[in-house]
């Protein structure tokens, strides 16, 4: 382990912060979709018979937004959980850095004892940490994948709403506007998810 690892561990903490910020953005957007869908439901009610299909889709979009929000909260909890692991790694990195420095400075018995200690540390603690980070990443990837599927479904709902808008008679124009707003917003979420998918925690204490 070298002194670079302290900075690496700091980078992991900043990475977690960025994930959390992205999650917050998606949660805000989900809330916006929820409001938009509620408005769309009222609009469809006013449009009456001709916008029945649009109304059903708006209801589905609302449900989608709620579910998205819940998934994002779960994702947020998982990321905060990883702060615990990364913090432990930061602390360990500090201890090991000091032991390494002591090892470099001494010879004889002290050096032998530290050699043995650092070897043991590499074999046990570091392997454990690597497994933990791998598990965290797997979990994160799985959650993001399942959210991506949900967002795909949201995209389908928004496109269908656009088609249904065409049958909206006198309300057609405003329904079309609402449905393209839906599409645009879901596009934003997709972008956030794409960048979330790129985040991976790295084990740095090797």
């Amino acid at each position, binding site marked *: 382990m070298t002194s670079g690892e302290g900075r690496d561990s700091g980078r992991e903490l900043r990475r977690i912060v960025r994930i959390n910020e992205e999650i917050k953005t998606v949660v805000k957007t989900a809330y916006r979709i929820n409001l938009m869908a509620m408005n769309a439901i009222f609009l469809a009610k006013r449009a009456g018979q001709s916008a029945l299909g649009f109304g059903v889709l708006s209801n589905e979009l609302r449900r989608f937004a709620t579910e998205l929000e819940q998934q994002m909260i779960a994702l947020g909890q998982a990321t905060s959980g990883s702060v615990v692991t990364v913090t432990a790694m930061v*602390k360990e990195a500090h201890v090991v850095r*000091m*032991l390494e420095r002591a090892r470099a400075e001494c010879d004889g018995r*002290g050096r032998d*004892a*530290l050699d043995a200690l650092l070897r043991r540390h590499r074999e046990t603690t570091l392997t454990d940490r690597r497994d933990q980070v791998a598990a965290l990443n797997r979990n994160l990837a799985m959650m993001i994948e399942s959210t991506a599927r949900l967002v795909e479904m949201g995209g389908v709902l928004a496109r269908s709403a656009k088609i249904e808008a065409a049958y909206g008679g006198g309300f057609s124009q405003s329904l079309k506007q609402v449905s393209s707003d839906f599409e645009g917003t879901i596009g934003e979420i997709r972008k956030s998810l794409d960048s979330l998918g790129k985040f991976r925690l790295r084990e740095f204490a090797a």
Partner: protein
Amino acid sequence: MKTMRVIYEDGGHKWHAIVRDPNRPHYLIDTNEYLVVAGDDAILVDPGGSEVFPAVFSALSTQFDPRKIGKLFASHQDPDIISSLSMWIEFNPDIKCYLSWLWSSFVPHFGGTKETFIDIPDKGMDIVVGGQRLQAIPAHYLHSSGNFHLYDPKAKILFSGDVGAALLPAGEDGMFVENFDRHIRHAEAFHRRWMGSERAKRDWCSRVSQLDIDMLCPQHGAIYRGADVKRFIDWFAHLDVGVIHG
């Protein structure tokens, strides 16, 4: 690396002082650590901050097998005293740390578990190292509210923590006090500012005046020997403390 020097030796009973680190960054206060060895047992007295761990550990290993250190003594909670704790525990998970009960839930923020700490009650206690009985002497409020010095009645050495500390300029930083009057100028501001209680100071002075002391070993600065020990105690007794001057 720091220097480790034997300051007392009688058979297997030894006091080592670990002092002066030429590579220490200037923003860290210089500290003295002491290793008391008795037979196969050893206690490291005020082990130091985490930043100086490498210098302390390597100096110590030149003359002593660090695996034999089973005990730490922390006079109080300060970072320059005991923030290296997590490294010592990593090195020896069974190590015990003697510390005022007052700090027992604070210092674990530096490392260790309930099992690591042995609480020293306010009135002090005996700490047996090898065959030697050392005494934790109360020095509360000087400067820490839960604070102990360590007295070795056989070696006649009193480890006095921050009491007796001096911030020595380069060139005047010998291991022992050679000229008391010149030396004490570097101790005055420190004691005025850091020692918080006049009453605690008087208590301490009368307590340690009754001890037979050949060497008074502070955590910063130089060691007082012989007549300088009494000179220091008298000087301290008359010093105005616990007030900020101008």
